[in-house]
């Protein structure tokens, strides 16, 4: 396509285009022919797949040593119920049904008589037993759990352990205690179990898309069930892929240009090409690198998802947006990185500039979740129209099952195109001056001065 376009241009423009392409081709070859590129290309999906596999393998592979938990039951109501549920769990849930192997720890409950004289001393003693490893945790069940009174502490179940927040055992206690006291309350009301069945029937809210008209047949089409996996996994995958591609192709331009400047390669090349052609060639090389990686990963992901019979999850309608925003994002970031690289004189300069320069790429990742939760909200809409964030956030909004107003992606595209042109123009002016200047620090004042004077 670019070559066809180049053929139609007048000679001078054709020469310009040819030079840009030669620089881009060198950049592309220099990047993709390296071992680190190939290793990185393979390593990323291997690491991602490996970590998922490791999660699947190890998620049930927990420590199977039995856990001893002390219970102080102030209510004197739930001892039997808890013992029965623990016995049932220890007999049926902790062994693999196929091979009989123990896969979970048994819960051993030790009931402690409440110390009404010095309750704090009792809890301190139990805490020390937990610290020494004799106990896993201890639970204190309030005295008024059956009929809650005005003192909140009396109606609570408290779980004491070293890692209470992340402890699965804590969640296990809630069910048997609540079920049992609910049954006691029903008994007090003298209600038969069949009469109370409907009372406790819990109805879930099912997430659905919207009803729409089939464009081909004109028939009304039932809304589809919202797929949680699709709602989060697809946008996450796309944004992370875009982030990774920009990190692999555009961000390295900063140090690459700085090295070319310091090793005087730039001066040699500037005898053959203009600074603008040089910069554009490098950015075009970055685009080619990112598109190569994107093509490999997207094709790989599509094949994998089809193999898993989950082809419906692939958002084909978003792929053109993905590639359009990716190209613009690489140009936008690449021109800034190349400009900053041209102003640097050593690695220290480059290191100082790299993080602030990467912020527009990183920041959208921090607001990804709120945008995914409410893609049509005001915050999501306006942030996704802020050019540095648009490629990431507009893509996220497009990738969620929620339909966003049709004009917004196009508006985002126009805004990004304009901002990209501005970035390239300013970047080009900084690059033209910076690439030949030695010994000038890349301060904000200097950068502004280069941009203004060109």
């Amino acid at each position: 396509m670019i070559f066809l376009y180049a053929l139609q241009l007048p000679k001078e423009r054709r020469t310009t285009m040819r030079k840009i392409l030669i620089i881009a081709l060198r950049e592309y070859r220099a990047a993709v022919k390296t071992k680190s590129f190939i290793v990185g290309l393979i390593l990323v999906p291997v690491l991602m797949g490996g970590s998922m596999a490791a999660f699947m393998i190890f998620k049930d592979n927990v420590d199977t040593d039995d856990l001893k938990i002390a219970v102080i039951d102030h209510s004197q109501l739930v001892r039997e119920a808890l013992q029965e549920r623990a016995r049932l769990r220890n007999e049926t849930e902790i062994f693999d049904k196929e091979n009989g192997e123990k896969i979970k720890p048994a819960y051993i409950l030790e009931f402690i008589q409440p110390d009404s004289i010095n309750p704090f001393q009792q809890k301190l003693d139990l805490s020390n037993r937990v610290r020494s490893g004799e106990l896993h945790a201890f639970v204190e069940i309030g005295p008024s759990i059956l009929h809650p009174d005005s003192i909140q502490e009396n109606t609570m179940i408290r779980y004491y352990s070293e890692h209470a927040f992340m402890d699965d055992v804590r969640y296990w206690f809630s069910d048997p205690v609540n079920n049992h006291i609910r049954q006691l309350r029903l008994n007090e009301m003298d209600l038969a179990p069949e009469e109370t069945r409907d009372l406790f029937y819990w109805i879930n809210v099912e997430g659905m898309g919207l009803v729409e008209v089939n464009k081909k047949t004109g028939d009304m089409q039932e809304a589809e069930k919202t797929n949680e996996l699709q709602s989060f996994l697809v946008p996450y995958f796309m944004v992370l892929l875009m982030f990774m591609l920009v990190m692999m192709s555009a961000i390295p331009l900063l140090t690459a240009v700085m090295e070319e400047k310091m090793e005087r390669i730039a001066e040699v090349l500037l005898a053959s090409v203009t600074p603008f052609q040089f910069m554009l060639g490098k950015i075009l090389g970055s685009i080619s690198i990112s598109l190569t990686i994107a093509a490999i990963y997207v094709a790989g992901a599509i094949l994998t998802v089809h193999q898993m019979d989950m082809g419906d999850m692939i958002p084909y309608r978003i792929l053109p947006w993905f590639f359009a925003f990716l190209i613009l994002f690489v140009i936008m970031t690449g021109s800034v990185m190349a400009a900053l690289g041209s102003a640097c004189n050593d690695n220290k300069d480059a290191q100082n500039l790299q993080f602030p320069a990467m912020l527009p790429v990183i920041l959208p990742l921090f607001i990804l979740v709120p945008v995914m939760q409410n893609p049509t909200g005001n915050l999501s809409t306006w942030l996704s129209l802020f050019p540095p964030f648009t490629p990431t956030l507009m893509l996220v909004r497009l990738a969620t099952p929620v339909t966003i107003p049709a004009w917004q992606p196009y508006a985002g595209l126009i805004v990004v195109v304009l901002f990209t042109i501005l970035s390239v123009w300013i970047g080009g002016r900084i690059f033209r001056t910076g690439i030949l200047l030695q010994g000038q620090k890349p301060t904000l004042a200097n950068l502004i001065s280069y941009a203004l004077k060109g």
Partner: protein
Amino acid sequence: MDIIELRQVTKNFGSLTAVDDLDLKVPMGTIYGFIGPNGSGKTTTIRMIMNILYPDQGTILLFGTRQRNQRLDHVGYLPEERGLYKKMKVYDVLKFHGELKNGKNLKQEITYWLRKFDLTAWTDKKVEALSKGMAQKLQFIATVIDRPQVIILDEPFSGLDPVNSEILRETLLELQKSGATIIFSTHDMNMAEKMCDYIFMIHKGKKVLDGTLNDIQNQYGSDTIRIQTELGAGALEELKGIEKISDFGQVQEIRLNTQADSQTILAEIMKKSRVLRFEITRPSLHDIFIRIAAPERKEDNHA
């Protein structure tokens, strides 16, 4: 026809005027030597010709036009500090530079030049594997791979051993014979004297010499005596009419005062020692350079 023309060109870096109101014409097919002390403005002038730096004032014409970008494809440039992609292979470097300059028959040219500079065995090696001298030869080949009409070389001989200097010198003369115009800057006055049709000297941003070696030497007249005596420099002590003595050990060079008579001086010296050689000559380029660039640092002033 003048292939390069500078008209009243000035370039400032902040408060420093690197090149000041410079006029220069480089005729087609000549070898033009740029000389001058370090920091005098040679590289800045060359960079402005190459459109790498833009003059603050004045005009630069290349092939008779101000539109230099397209014309630069016919100019080969070897900068003072060499710069090559270290991870690229020798062949790929030459192909890359040749393609950028729209060179023809690149494969044959690469083979020819690598053989000429004895680098054929390194064709598939990476640049980082080359020695400094080899990398310099490679950079020179990259400069001329497309057979440019104008070749501009900033210090091409620095860092080369005598054998490679000789190969480079012969190559430049061959390129000139084939029609190329060559500009090179150098600190090697001997090389400039031997090779250049025209010599241009810049000092503190201003042109101080411009013309053929003959013209330049004629400006200074025959005020130099090259002498060899049995007593050496001792025979020249307390002579009158001498502005400066440069002692080279076996031979001494005397610069005369304007009113001094060479025959009187010869007679004075013969009273002290046997004279083995006495030659009235024009000053060398080296001597002229020093007279301009370092008048305050007189090595051995007996005036």
